[in-house]
């Protein structure tokens, strides 16, 4: 398996951005039920900014591993809300891990899930069970860290991510804006959990496409 260069990392960001753009209004509806309906816009606009900044940096010769820090800063400058700092922290954490690398091995792509999860956890301080995106990121990170080929690891991560998302329906929010609703947050999927699944699914699908195209 040949490693991913800077342009292929940009392509990966493009898949995430496209999926989030498609889900913009759906995420807004989820967020409208228990929050302020801004989550779809935040995620779609944030990753659109990530694509713009990383494509520009890649064209200027930025190394693949350094694109994550570029992406993190772009996300933070583009998005407020909680989503801005949380995903900026996710991308910056991946940036620390991969800094200076000209290429990223396909085997290392699942580690993005762990890096994103760690960045979000440290910024947001939410625990699994709080009805947040951590109900997706925490189990997905654990699944992605288990041994196996990279696509199988992301398949597993996606499966538990979806379970985590669906489990938020039965949770009462205890942090974030929905926490103020108490019991009335019951029965609704957390929008941050839903968008986290979209990001993980996009990573998985982008890697699958890359591997199928890279195969002779």
């Amino acid at each position, binding site marked *: 398996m040949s490693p991913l260069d800077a342009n292929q990392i940009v392509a990966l960001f493009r898949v995430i951005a496209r999926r989030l753009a498609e889900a913009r209004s759906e995420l807004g509806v989820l967020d*409208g*039920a228990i929050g302020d309906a801004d989550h779809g816009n935040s995620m779609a606009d944030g990753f659109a900014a990530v694509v713009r900044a990383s494509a520009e940096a890649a064209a200027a010769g930025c190394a693949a591993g350094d694109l994550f820090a570029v992406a993190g800063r772009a996300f*933070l400058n583009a998005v*407020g809300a*909680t989503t801005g700092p949380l995903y900026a922290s996710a991308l910056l954490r991946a940036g620390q891990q991969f800094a200076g690398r000209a290429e990223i091995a396909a085997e290392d792509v699942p580690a993005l899930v762990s890096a994103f999860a760690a960045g979000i956890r440290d910024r947001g301080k939410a625990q699994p069970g709080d009805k947040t995106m951590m109900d997706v990121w925490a189990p997905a990170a654990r699944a992605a860290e288990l041994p196996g080929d990279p696509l199988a690891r992301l398949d597993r991560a996606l499966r538990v991510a979806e379970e985590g998302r669906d489990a938020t329906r039965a949770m009462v929010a205890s942090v974030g*804006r929905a*926490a*103020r*609703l*108490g019991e009335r947050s019951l029965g609704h999927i957390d929008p941050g959990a839903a968008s986290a699944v979209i990001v993980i699914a996009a990573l998985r699908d982008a890697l699958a496409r890359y591997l199928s195209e890279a195969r002779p």
Partner: protein
Amino acid sequence: MQRFINNPDDLVDETVAGFVKVHRDLVHLDAGNPRVVVSNAAPQQGRVGIVTGGGSGHEPAFIGYAGRNMVDAVAVGELFSSPTAKSFADAIRAADGGAGVAVLYGNYAGDNMNVKMAARMVAREGIEVATVVANDDVCSAPPGERAKRRGVAGEIFMWKIGGAKAAQGASLAEVQAAAQKAIDACRSVGVGLGPCTLPGVGHPNFQIEPGTMEVGIGHHGEPGTRVEALKTANEVADDMLKIVMEDHALPAGTELAVLVSGLGATPVNELYVLYDRIEAGLTAMGMGIHRALVGNYFTSLEMVGATLTVMALDAELKALLDLETASPAL
């Protein structure tokens, strides 16, 4: 609801553009960041700068409170969405007169994170930042968990007190203490009669059934903590006063500042109807009204409803509240 709108994506920028034209005698846009509104009086060398920020859709909050002896710079977010860390950082830079900057904002997860990241950005430039987080909304958490409560219209009093203290040449620690004292002296409650719609989303983000009202409603359309049958204005005013004053537990004879704000779509005359009853109730409790404000001071798009904020005053707060100020909203 029918709207005056071009493209929903341009709404915030167009709002701010119109606002700074109307109030060009008091405020201007930051040269480097179109999401930062700066008081024409800022920065003042040697004085503590005052910064706030928050989502759009609450006009005249937050931008309306930029001005002389009030807020020096305001970070502007998307509708109902915290400003970016960059905008908070740029607002801090614009307000900095070399004596530190107090960021006085509401307790929301996004604002908390973005202010924290902004404070770290400007610390590298040698700007000292102190923060006070407003948490005056009684129904958003029980008394034992006051730190979890939302900040709502009590923020206006916090800005007024903080801005006045800074205008008197106080240190950053003194400004922070005064603003903290102001918000600690505030209790608020909101009642919603009709929901609001983010133009980009196109449907109300919650429903209020006809004939009902939501008590404890938030400033972003967060549903209230309980739904009840709609009552008369006097009964609603009594309920609001009860919620606020039971949490406050003030001795008789306390002097108060009282703010009744519309949430956007409630006619202003109805706010006076509420106030009439509220003042009667406070007087019956033996409280003194030092100052009352009634109008659309802190709104929530076209939500139907009102908020009540009661601030308990001592001699210091009274003097700071009365200090002359000039801002578009106050």
